């Protein structure tokens, strides 16, 4: 029983990162009284990300000062439904966010629009390769929204972020120097691309000479001083090298704090309550409507917060967990394949080559920004013929130099001892000359990769943890083997003295220890069929029309891109449907 009951609001937002800030802006603009509940602390550029304290690799990069405190809540992980899951006790494979801005504070700003084919993946593959091409047990689905529908929202989010890049396709006209594979865009990027570090210049030349199409990585790291449509001012990125895992002291990396909060926090119909940990969405007795949420405040009080509209804006995993804890939607069962909440958890499969150059070619790895470098899209999405290759998906290949911080990013040639005199000598001789060529690969959704509630482990409030059942599958291993051959080809063409390849191979199991990607997707996917999706194409829960679910939990499968720009665009798309249709006549939009 709640001990405190608060006055009702028009809309409550659960979580206050990117999607919470976007929804806050859009719903307050529509005149609604909006409340955001954030379980973590308030954070802002000053004092939380100020120089020089933020340049502390140990505290931020390694101990994770800005990340979720796992002692209170984590997830459990296992490889198959037959295994017993154990807790993800320390941060490794992915880095969960916490506090105002969420993971939008400590991302590194790789800004990608989805490819048109990515949003209609099943339709694309069936049309081009036939239904039989899709392996047994793979859940390949369309998003239910098209690129053309999302284009204005991609455009908006780029303007909000002050994204630096070079268009490759302006209204259907291919532009020199950009990504020729990208979907059409109405406008050029708001800012020109970031300068390229030495290693990326070599990568660009090597890839181009091999006949590929490299282009500057689009970066939500402002290359110039910039004022966004809300009047928020961003400063120019200075390549400080402390980007992902850190807040940006230069106001250059787009985050809720640098782009939206200066406006939103001033609006009288907006309220933020931090240290407010939402436990569940409260439902009407018939389960057809949400009546609000219940949260625990900083002092441990249980608070009931009534609301007409509930928008889940937390991280992908937390959104799925809240749906499960609130009994919203049918829980997925891998044995029967029925149910939708927890279905289609996916991840990314990355690889890379570490390159070491001679002493006449310093790479100065400490000169870096989160998204400074070049990428290529030749083997991503359906930009190449999969027919003879026999796998679904692809990867972006890039050379991005983010900072060369020595505890985390010192990379020594394969075969170097991990300690002792030889290790030290290798560190001294190689650090300045190291770089890497990386790949970020898609992971499809499968019948037995899914999320549910753990039967054993509990959070600090006594509620079950989310349980992840996930392992690599042959299709994705075939993808990464193919991509690895391309990465090696490019790496050799860059002319290093030494190359160390790091790609997973068939038979490898998911290892949660090394960092891989904070691009966890699915579990509450969007679509056009309530049997295979938890939310409709407007991100509205099928049978509970006053609950919307933001975030990468909506992705039916993962692609070779960083998800943030798609997550942002989907939030604007959903907000438009709420403002223009739902508020006039609250009910199911699809």
């Amino acid at each position: 029983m709640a001990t405190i009951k608060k006055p009702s609001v028009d809309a409550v937002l659960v979580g206050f990162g990117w999607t919470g800030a976007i929804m806050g802006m859009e719903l307050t603009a529509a005149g609604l009284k909006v409340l955001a509940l954030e379980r973590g602390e308030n954070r802002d550029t000053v004092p939380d990300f100020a120089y020089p304290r933020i340049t502390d690799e140990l505290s931020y990069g390694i101990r994770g000062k800005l990340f979720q405190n796992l002692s209170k809540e984590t997830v459990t992980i296992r490889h198959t439904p037959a295994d017993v899951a154990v807790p993800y006790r320390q941060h490794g494979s992915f880095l969960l966010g916490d506090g105002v801005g969420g993971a939008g504070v400590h991302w590194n700003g790789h800004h990608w629009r989805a490819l048109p084919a990515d949003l209609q993946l099943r339709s694309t593959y069936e049309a081009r390769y036939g239904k039989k091409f899709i392996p047994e047990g793979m859940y390949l689905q369309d998003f239910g929204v098209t690129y053309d529908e999302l284009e204005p929202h991609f455009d908006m989010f780029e303007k909000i972020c002050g994204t630096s890049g070079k268009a490759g396709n302006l209204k259907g006209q291919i532009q020199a120097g950009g990504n020729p594979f990208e979907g059409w865009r109405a406008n050029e990027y708001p800012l020109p691309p970031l300068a390229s570090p030495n290693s990326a210049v070599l990568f660009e030349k090597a890839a181009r000479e091999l006949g590929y199409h490299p282009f500057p990585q689009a970066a939500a790291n402002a290359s110039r001083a910039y004022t966004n449509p809300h009047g928020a001012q961003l400063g120019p990125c200075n390549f400080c090298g402390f980007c992902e895992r850190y807040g940006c002291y230069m106001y250059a990396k787009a985050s809720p704090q640098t782009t939206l909060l200066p406006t939103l926090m001033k609006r009288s119909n907006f309220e933020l309550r931090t240290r407010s940990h939402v436990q569940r969405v409260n439902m009407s007795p018939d389960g057809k409507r949400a009546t609000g949420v219940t949260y625990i405040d900083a002092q441990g009080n249980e608070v009931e917060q009534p609301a007409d509209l509930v928008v889940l804006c937390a991280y992908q995993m937390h959104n799925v967990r809240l749906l499960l804890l609130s009994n919203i939607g049918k829980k997925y069962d891998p044995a029967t394949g029925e149910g939708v909440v927890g279905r289609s958890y996916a991840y990314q499969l990355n690889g890379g080559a570490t390159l070491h150059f001679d002493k006449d070619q310093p790479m100065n790895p400490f000169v870096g920004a989160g998204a400074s470098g070049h990428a290529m899209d030749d083997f991503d999405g359906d930009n190449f013929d999969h027919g003879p290759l026999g796998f679904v998906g692809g990867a972006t290949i890039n050379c991005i130099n983010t900072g060369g911080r020595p505890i985390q990013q010192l990379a020594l040639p394969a075969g170097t001892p991990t300690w002792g005199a030889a290790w030290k000598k290798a560190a001294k001789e190689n650090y300045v000359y190291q770089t890497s060529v990386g790949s970020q690969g898609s992971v499809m959704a499968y019948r037995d990769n899914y999320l549910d509630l753990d039967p054993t482990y509990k959070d600090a409030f006594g509620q079950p943890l989310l349980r992840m059942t996930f392992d690599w599958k042959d299709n994705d291993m075939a993808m990464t083997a193919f991509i690895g051959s391309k990465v090696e080809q490019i790496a050799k063409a860059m002319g290093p003295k030494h190359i160390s390849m790091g790609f997973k191979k068939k038979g490898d199991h998911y290892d949660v220890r090394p960092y891989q990607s904070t691009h966890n997707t699915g579990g509450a996917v969007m679509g056009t069929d309530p049997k295979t999706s938890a939310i409709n194409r407007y991100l509205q829960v099928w049978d509970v029309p006053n609950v919307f679910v933001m975030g990468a939990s909506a992705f039916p499968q993962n692609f070779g891109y960083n998800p943030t720009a798609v997550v942002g665009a989907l939030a604007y798309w959903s907000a438009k449907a709420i403002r223009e249709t739902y508020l006039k006549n609250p009910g199911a939009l699809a």
Partner: protein
Amino acid sequence: MTDVPSPGRRGFLRRSIAIVPAAGALTATGFVAGQQVAAQAASAPAAAASPPYTPVYFHAEEWAFIQAAVARLIPSDDTGPGAIEAGVPEFIDRQMEGAFGQAATWYMQGPFVPSSPLFGYQGKMLPREVYRAGIAATDAWCKQQKGGKRFAELDTGTQDEVLKGLDGGTIQFAEVGAKDFFTFLLQNTKEGYFSDPIHGGNKNAVAWKMIGFPGARADFLDWVDKPGVHYPLPPVSINGPQG
């Protein structure tokens, strides 16, 4: 090669000549990054320049172990400063008293189920407890196997052999995971070597000077378009210039 056992003698700078494994897969160039820094790195100020550190967590025998072990993990030699000059023992002792040693931000609720190493450390013991038990078990093992001497009293070649046994799983203990212990020890040693001097290690930024990392400068707008040019400035700490 000689080495002086120095159990419990704080501030004593251990010097040892390292054996470079012949199997090193490196085409070493011997080049020092940042020529202007090279001279300083080669004559790094000794740890004795700062007041001796008194450990807060480790007992005297444990402290002797920590000093001996990190001196083998990152030895002092002609290549550059080792873990002792960098103040790594102080760093580790401070970590034991802080959030890391107490696993303050780790999920530490049971049940604790033995599982594949792929799922990370799944033990019930806090890192500081793993250190305490790991040091005791290693010393007991050494006494039994190596003529009644504790780890810190062994010659450096034998110390390396013991560390390789912990690392490679050939030495096992009943009361604590030998590999868990070694993993924490090596991780913390490298952290202490490369982290900002504000944390007690990397004294005078000696490790940064050696590899050519500018530390907390964190402003390279004027350097991003200088391909193939070595960065000239020495590192700075969050606390300011370093020696």
